[in-house]
């Protein structure tokens, strides 16, 4: 019996398109990248089931730490400044959502004062930041 010899052609994986693939991925990551503008505070968020996803843009944050410290744009601010600072941001961007990232162990009084400040300055669209609770 005769066994046919397998022809020895040069076997190569075509690599001409790797660059294109890489560029495609780059474009994807460039578009999806959001550079973190602020550091914020170290916060233990409460969990909720009905939390909705926030949009990528048009969100301003207020951090409220466990000890009642309030941080906006990485500056520690007194409560009385919160309203003015956020109102200024809201004036630039009318659809702005203010995300209040408060620690779950902070006293509600602090959060209440922040809400008071915001409503006094007509910043009314609020989101209470939470984690997702798995049902």
């Amino acid at each position, binding site marked *: 019996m005769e066994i046919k010899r397998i022809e020895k052609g040069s076997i190569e994986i075509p*690599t001409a398109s*790797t*660059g294109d693939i*890489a*560029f495609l*991925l*780059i474009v994807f*990551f*460039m578009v*999806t*990248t*959001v*550079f*973190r503008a602020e550091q914020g505070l170290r916060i233990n968020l*409460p*969990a*909720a*089931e*009905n*939390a*909705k*996803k*926030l949009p*990528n843009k048009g*969100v301003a944050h207020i951090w*409220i730490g466990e000890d009642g410290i309030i941080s906006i744009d990485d500056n520690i601010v007194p409560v009385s400044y919160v309203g003015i600072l956020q109102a200024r941001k809201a004036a630039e961007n009318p659809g702005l*959502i203010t*995300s209040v990232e*408060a*620690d*779950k*162990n*902070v*006293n*509600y*009084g602090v*959060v*209440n004062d922040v*809400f*008071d400040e*915001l*409503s*006094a300055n*007509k*910043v*009314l*669209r*609020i*989101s*209470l*930041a*939470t*984690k*997702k*609770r798995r049902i």
Partner: protein
Amino acid sequence: MRRPKRSESSSIPTASTGDIAFLLLVFFMTTTIFNNELGLQIVLPEKGETVKVKSSSIAHVYVARDGSVKIEGKNVPIDKIEDTAIDLLTKGHTVKADTNLIFSMKTSRFCKYGVMITVFDNLKKAFNTLNVPEKISLKPSPISEEF
């Protein structure tokens, strides 16, 4: 004078574009943070804005400093908040929910924020279960009155 004719084909070397692209790719991959912020949306009432509402269409919710919850004057355990709210919205028997009912939520200044969120979340859940628009209002809790 005559210029010597160049016959060499001049081309930009493209062999390394792939490498450059991968380098950039790695950079963007490592710096990317996917946005996964979650939150409970709410619209605060404007200060000074008073809307007259029939007292019968308000359900009062109190969250005390020890985390106990009172709905319409009755103590309600945390895991029963949703059921109680559904009962109030449907008036116990009717299938159709009363869409005019507003939950007015008041929280003690010394209550933990996490407890308040749990209560708020449970109220929201009741509205979502019945598929009616949410009507939850956060009442300010001044320092002067403590309960």
